[in-house]
């Protein structure tokens, strides 16, 4: 595992506090570095005015006017509270978990406070502002509660938290989907989900659903029984050898042929495709973790009288999964970016909805603004997750063996 090593330069040492000396040391220390610096500055100088001119002419009305559309797609406007409630649930759970796993209080409470300030001052409408503030409060309160409860009974509370996370998945599904004939949660079919909501739903469903499948495939690939090993290996290698887009197309076109008696919704077919794809990669990640578990652990477990399943569930998998947690986060990030491909098969996730906004004559020629906004959203999610994963890696003490 490659660990980022902090750049070992003198940028922070006290003797370089002098700016001139700093510049000389970091920009002009050798003749080729001087050349590179000059070239880079020239290139930046050539680009800057164009960027400035563009920024001056940019019109962000296209993004603000379509914000609800970009975030929620065609989700019924009078039911938006359900999405907010889902967000509140997830963020509160994050707060609780951060508290329970000794997160940095300054970072979490501080972030919640900053977000709350932005929510108060930002251009939001009354319900949105209320929900945003509620979410910030949820994170902060969750953090404090999590800390308190952990101090009280750590092992029990952490187990309860894991259970809460597991329960949150069906709860959020129920919240989003509802059921037909209900007056409180009327049904909102997946074809009405869209925008960022759909992007996140697809990525989360993909990673959660591929998890058990991936573990089974990884175990199968390491099986001593050739028939099972071959089938699992063939599946993993075939899926990894073809592009996701072809699997998505296949799910769209072939799934209805293989299951002619069901009406499988467009979005669900995309989920199936993403899950089948993701499972192969998950299997390889898990396999890496399994290989890292020393034999002695298994022998010790047997010596203690644990049977095969117990050894697997209590000894091997926990260690293996802990080791590959950063890799799984990495897979989640690439999956999040990959969900943009469903726009090609006609779904209105973030990129798809951006394209349909651009098809609207009112917003003619505003591609740059819209695509930049979409890129920012993806960047924020994947960049923050990858830095979180790096911190996690350090916290778990991985990669230092």
């Amino acid at each position, binding site marked *: 595992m490659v660990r980022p090593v902090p750049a070992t330069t003198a940028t922070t040492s006290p003797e370089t506090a002098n700016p001139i000396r700093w510049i000389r040391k970091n920009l002009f220390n050798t003749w080729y570095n001087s050349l590179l610096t000059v070239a880079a500055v020239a290139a930046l100088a050539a680009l800057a005015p164009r960027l400035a001119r563009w920024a001056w002419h940019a019109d962000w009305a296209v993004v603000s006017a379509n914000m609800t559309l970009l975030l929620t797609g065609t989700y019924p406007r009078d039911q938006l509270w359900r999405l907010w409630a889902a967000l509140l649930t997830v963020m509160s759970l994050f707060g609780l978990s951060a508290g329970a796993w000794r997160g940095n209080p300054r970072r979490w409470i501080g972030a919640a406070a900053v977000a709350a300030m932005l929510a108060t001052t930002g251009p939001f409408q009354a319900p949105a502002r209320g929900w945003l503030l509620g979410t910030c409060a949820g994170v902060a309160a969750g953090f404090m509660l999590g800390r308190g409860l952990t101090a009280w009974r750590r092992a029990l509370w952490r187990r309860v938290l894991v259970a809460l996370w597991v329960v949150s998945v069906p709860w959020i599904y129920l919240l989003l989907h509802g059921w037909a004939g209900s007056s409180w949660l009327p049904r909102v079919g997946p074809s009405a989900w869209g925008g960022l909501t759909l992007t996140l739903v697809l990525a989360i469903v993909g990673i959660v659903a591929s998890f058990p499948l991936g573990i*089974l495939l990884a175990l199968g690939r390491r099986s*001593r029984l050739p028939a099972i090993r071959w089938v699992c290996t063939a599946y993993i290698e075939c899926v990894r050898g073809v592009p996701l887009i072809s699997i998505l197309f296949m799910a769209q076109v072939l799934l*209805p042929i293989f299951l002619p008696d069901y009406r499988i919704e*467009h979005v669900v077919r995309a989920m199936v495709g993403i899950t089948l794809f993701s499972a192969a990669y998950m299997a390889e990640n898990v396999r890496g973790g399994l290989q890292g578990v020393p034999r002695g652990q298994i022998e010790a477990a047997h010596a203690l009288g644990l049977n095969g399943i117990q050894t697997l569930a209590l000894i091997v998998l926990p260690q293996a999964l802990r080791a590959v947690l950063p890799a799984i986060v990495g897979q989640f990030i690439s999956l999040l970016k990959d969900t943009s491909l469903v726009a090609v098969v006609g779904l*209105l996730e973030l990129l798809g909805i951006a*394209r*349909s906004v651009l098809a*609207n004559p009112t917003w003619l020629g505003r*591609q740059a603004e819209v695509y930049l906004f979409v890129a920012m959203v993806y960047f924020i999610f994947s960049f923050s997750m990858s830095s979180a994963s790096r911190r996690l890696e350090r916290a778990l003490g991985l990669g230092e063996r």
Partner: protein
Amino acid sequence: MAQRRVWLLVTVVVGTVLTLASTAALAQQSTLDVVRARGHLVCGVNNGLPGFGYLESDGSWSGFDIDYCRAVAAAVLGDPNAVEFVPLTAAERFIALQTGEIDVLIRNATWTLVRDTDLGLNFAPVTFFDGQGFMVPRDLGVTSLEDLAGASICVTSGTTTELNLADAFRARGLPFTPVVFEEIDTVYRAYEQGRCDAVTSDKSQLAGRRAIMADPEAHVILDETISKEPLAPVVRHGDDRWYDVVSWVVYATFFAEEKGITSQNVTTFQSPDPDVQRFLGQTGGLGAMLGLSNDWAIKVIQAVGNYAEIFDRNLGPLGLPRGLNRQWTDGGLLYAMPFR
């Protein structure tokens, strides 16, 4: 241990098999009953074609085809808003219909023999008579297809358009370079930015997209028409009751225009004409024969208006002429079958 794991795996696989096997063929029932039981209509539409099928900024749908979806929902369920719109690309639209993902496809689909027979589809009456044409920048000075020899031409993939284009140029012995895109929007953006010398599609689409270009006057649609494109709602083969419902909803909009019934006056419309009385459900019990309520036609007209209203609301702003899509009494091709 290995054995335990094997059995675990075996259990999972066998479980999957049994689940799949236990849910063998479900009884086939008419889409009409399915829609009623479900409480909403699932309609396959276009999401990038202004005037026909289109997603508005507030998340609602609008367009000529969209209105026909609402009309069907109004007739069957009495509520024009009980529709779930499924945006589909040209490539996947028929599969979505065949597999039952959607109840009806109203997405400017051309009626052809192959589709009617081999693909297992049934076409309701044509709602829009169209033909494939070409749009070129005005300053190119092109007036006929022959002038486009050697040109790059933008076209949507997976459509009859793509084949018609190749046929037309081959028949005339002209060389050309097709520039093919999946998304309608990309096609026109590429054309407008100068990637192609011309763009080809149904003339209604060309007119619709021309209207929303930065400078509509800078583009002309050539007079030449290289194909017939009758666009119609599509349902599955072998479901006659549902086919009848969709067909007569379309006829109802034609008929209302012919008789001067509009969304404004439909509730109060009085006429000694027995045809009209049957249409309005005052006599005859035609609704029951279709499996609908007797005031179904009133609900349709109330919801979306007659053909002229639908046309003017959606296609009027694009500057599309009625052309062939006039009533038969005005020399057009719209001809409602008798309501009797």
